[in-house]
């Protein structure tokens, strides 16, 4: 029997507001434990929450970007559970009447394009962190993260494979980053993903028993965790066993999942409307203003890159993965209008160096102007492609202009016809037996002659001209 997977994802994204969701503490990461706290986020007796307006606006933007319906009337609810990282022992979240519902995002995989439905996007507050002492049975509480605004994005169970899950996550992340409302850092936990996964015989409509997967803190781990879990469930079913509804933790060291707790003890969160916060009315005028402020989103941009610049969809996908990279590409093309050449250089040389040095494009030592100038030199034939790569590395290391580096190192291409003819003749004279073999039909030796010319000129000879000249000189013999 063939099985198919049914996957739904729950994504938590930390919003890039300056202050927390319900108090004025800073959201800055990495401060001394418990230093970014106040009586409100510490849940002291008598304190009250006041909603951060920016958090609301960011959520509306994300909801609009994901084609959600905005609920003009929505409200906060309390999710009650006891845990030391949650000072009030309830989390302010949304339950009935979330701020937005019924959206979708489009993803593209090897199977083509698909639309993944979104059940809802709602606002809530983050919890703190527990730090466990390895040497004794003591845990420490750091409440710096407590109250940082989050949005929770809940997908419909529309996802059918780990590959789709990965594509969906990347798409959501790209949108969040484009909107400038989340830094999308999975390792640091500002973009987190839990998954609900079940399997069923192909063609079956009813859903199988699901497990919830946690602790997958990279795109790759999400895909690997899901694949492992799908395989595990299919094997169980094939062996005639039952699947236990439970939460399972992904172990990145082994690539496996293991049971964390059984849902038999399912929490009853006793949700009820938070009486400290009035229901929220999202004015249509606000929604329209925020809609008008939406930037071009990754999907639109990708499509435009294909149409406007004539680059392959794959290139467009890579270049639009971040807004800054797309901007860098566009700026370079504006100065040097050969999009495919620009795209090649960015995707190979630039990305190689950026990755190696762990630079983001925003801290790239080579400006779009500098890259355009370098490519122009290549295009004009002033330097060869090979030399250009050397120059590029030098530019990346020093931040200098290409012209300065070429001048310093005497790397200008030799394009002087007379000079090159002379060198070519000399090379042919010095290698009479190869010339003879060439004339006998071993035309592959052309490469050898070119190589010799390059050797003499230290690679600075214009390769196209060298070919042409050698051809003519050999014809004369």
């Amino acid at each position: 029997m063939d099985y198919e997977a049914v996957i739904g994802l729950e994504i938590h994204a930390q919003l890039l507001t300056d202050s927390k969701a319900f108090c004025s503490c800073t959201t800055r990461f990495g401060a001394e434990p418990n230093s970014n706290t106040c009586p409100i986020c510490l849940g002291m007796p008598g304190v009250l929450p006041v909603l951060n307006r920016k958090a609301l606006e960011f959520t509306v933007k994300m909801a609009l970007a994901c084609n959600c319906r905005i609920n003009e009337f929505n409200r906060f609810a309390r999710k009650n559970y006891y845990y030391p990282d949650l000072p009030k022992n309830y989390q302010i979240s949304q339950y009935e009447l979330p701020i937005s519902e019924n959206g979708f995002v489009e993803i593209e995989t090897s199977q083509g394009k698909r639309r993944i439905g979104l059940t809802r996007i709602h606002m809530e507050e983050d919890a703190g962190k527990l730090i466990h002492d390895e040497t004794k049975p003591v845990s420490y509480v750091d409440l710096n993260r407590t109250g940082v605004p989050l949005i929770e994005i809940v997908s419909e169970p529309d996802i059918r494979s780990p590959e789709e899950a990965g594509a969906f996550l990347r798409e959501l992340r790209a949108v969040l980053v484009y909107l400038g409302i989340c830094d999308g850092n999975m390792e640091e936990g500002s973009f987190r993903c839990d998954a609900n996964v079940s399997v069923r015989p192909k063609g079956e409509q009813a859903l199988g028993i699901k497990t919830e997967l946690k602790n997958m803190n990279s795109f790759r781990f999400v895909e690997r965790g899901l694949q492992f879990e799908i395989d595990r469930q299919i094997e169980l079913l094939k062996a005639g066993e039952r699947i236990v509804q439970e939460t399972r933790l992904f172990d990145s060291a082994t690539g496996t999942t293991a049971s964390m707790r059984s849902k038999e003890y399912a929490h009853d969160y006793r949700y009820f409307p938070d009486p400290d916060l009035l229901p929220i009315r999202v004015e249509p005028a606000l929604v329209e203003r925020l809609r008008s402020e939406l930037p071009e989103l990754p999907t639109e941009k990708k499509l435009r890159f294909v149409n406007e610049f004539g680059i392959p969809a794959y290139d467009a996908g890579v270049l639009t993965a971040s807004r800054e990279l797309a901007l860098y590409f566009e700026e370079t093309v504006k100065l040097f209008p050969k999009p495919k050449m620009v795209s090649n250089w960015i995707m190979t040389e630039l990305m190689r160096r950026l990755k190696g040095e762990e630079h983001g494009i925003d801290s790239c030592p080579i400006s779009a102007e500098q890259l355009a100038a370098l490519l122009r030199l290549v295009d004009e034939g002033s330097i060869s492609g090979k030399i250009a790569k050397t120059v590029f590395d030098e530019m990346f290391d020093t931040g200098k202009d290409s012209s300065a580096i070429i001048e310093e190192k005497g790397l200008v291409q030799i394009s002087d016809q007379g000079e090159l003819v002379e060198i070519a003749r000399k090379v042919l004279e010095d290698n009479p037996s190869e010339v003879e073999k060439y004339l006998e039909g071993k035309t592959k030796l052309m490469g050898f002659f070119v190589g010799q010319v390059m050797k003499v000129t230290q690679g600075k000879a214009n390769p196209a001209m060298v070919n042409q000249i050698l051809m003519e000189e050999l014809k004369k013999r």
Partner: protein
Amino acid sequence: MALYEYTAGRLAEMLRTKETSSVEITRSVLERIDAVEEKLRCYVTVSPEEAVKMAEEADRRLAAGDGKPLTGIPIAIKDNMCWKGHRTTCASKILHNFHPPYDSTVVRLLKEEGIVILGSANMDEFAMGSSTETSHWGPTRNPWNVEMIPGGSSGGSAAAVAAGEAVVTLGSDTGGSIRLPAAFCGVSGMKPTYGAVSRYGLVAYASSLDQIGPIARDARDIALLLNIICGHDPKDSTSVPRDYPNFSNSLDKPVKGMKIGLPREFFDKLEDPDVNRVMKDARQIYRSLGVSFVDLSLPHLDYALAAYYIIAPSEASSNLARYDGVKYGFRAENFDGMIDMYCRSRAEGFGAEVKRRIMLGTYALSSGYYDAYYLKAAKIRTLITNDFRKAFEECDAILCPTAPSPPFRIGEKMDDPIQMYLTDVFTIPVNMAGLPGMAIPGGFSSDGLPIGIQLVASHFEEARLVQLSSAFQKETDHHLKRPSL
């Protein structure tokens, strides 16, 4: 007459004419506390040195011509209002050692006014109770008869005013906790409209019902305190931004021509002859002032108490979840692991009534019961609010009893929660609808115990309550009577 016996309004005049000083007034009240506190137990914490320091500062301000209307007047706050650096316990073991690192908005406003804060008044634990008997620190006694309860939950605040242990006080009212003890102690108390006074720093019992208000000897003092505490606070999302009037301007407005509603549901069940007599007398006085009466009906009133005992405990079960022994307050000494620490700290830290309400609320919010209990109660609440709204189309204010009986004996209802809850049957509907309500002395029982009458007005019509009670107090002397201690 000793200084502690005067009203805040009168003392303020004496301060302005330099007949006395804030330090003199404060010392007089502190001496009175020394004399009678042991008998009554109005306070959880008195801070005499701090009070005298505040009085000295007030005198400096007054001398510099920088005084405000109540600068230099001694006040006590209920033990559930956070006062930076001062123990705020909510009369609970679980907060027995809690010193807030911040001021509640009302305390900030009192400080800005230059008021002298004497200390924190006793109350039912977490404001859950009608008699001040559930306090971890023991019951407060009624100054009119120390065998009797003072009412609750702001029993300490009301008794202190009656006994001269404070000139004025602040209380909080979730289901009658200002008006009931004010009535039982023979003083005036107002619960303002929900949203008129900031709740920031008021330790929450039931957030959608809690409201801070003044307790004082007469309507004039009530108005003076309302002038200070009413106002929008950006730190409280439920605080209403609007212009609040100078309530003192309503003290001398005639009430002739006003219409008072008498909801039959309030009077139908009234059995106590003393309360009946006091209500009849009150009608007579208002009639003599040119007020007319309309009979009306609030059809859903009968469900108010039941709905309250769903909504308030539900909110409480969540509001009180933070007291877990992790961050502040009481932590059990012996425990085995984290969950056990939670359980023992809460089991040992909370009293019986608080636990009862936490359990009630937890049950009502549980999955599968939410719709039948919480949601239904919320709907009843809307119906009650609509009943009142309709009623106020026909009248300017409502007159009704504050409590079904005069004060009862200490211990009398402690074993019978339902009987205790029924004490609030006339005050709870007002909280459910978020309306302003005021209790003022209306007379005495045959045993010489105070009986209060209650006036209720439409949202943000506190001024009308001040006007009506001031008019009443000009015609009567119940509010001038003092218990002999």
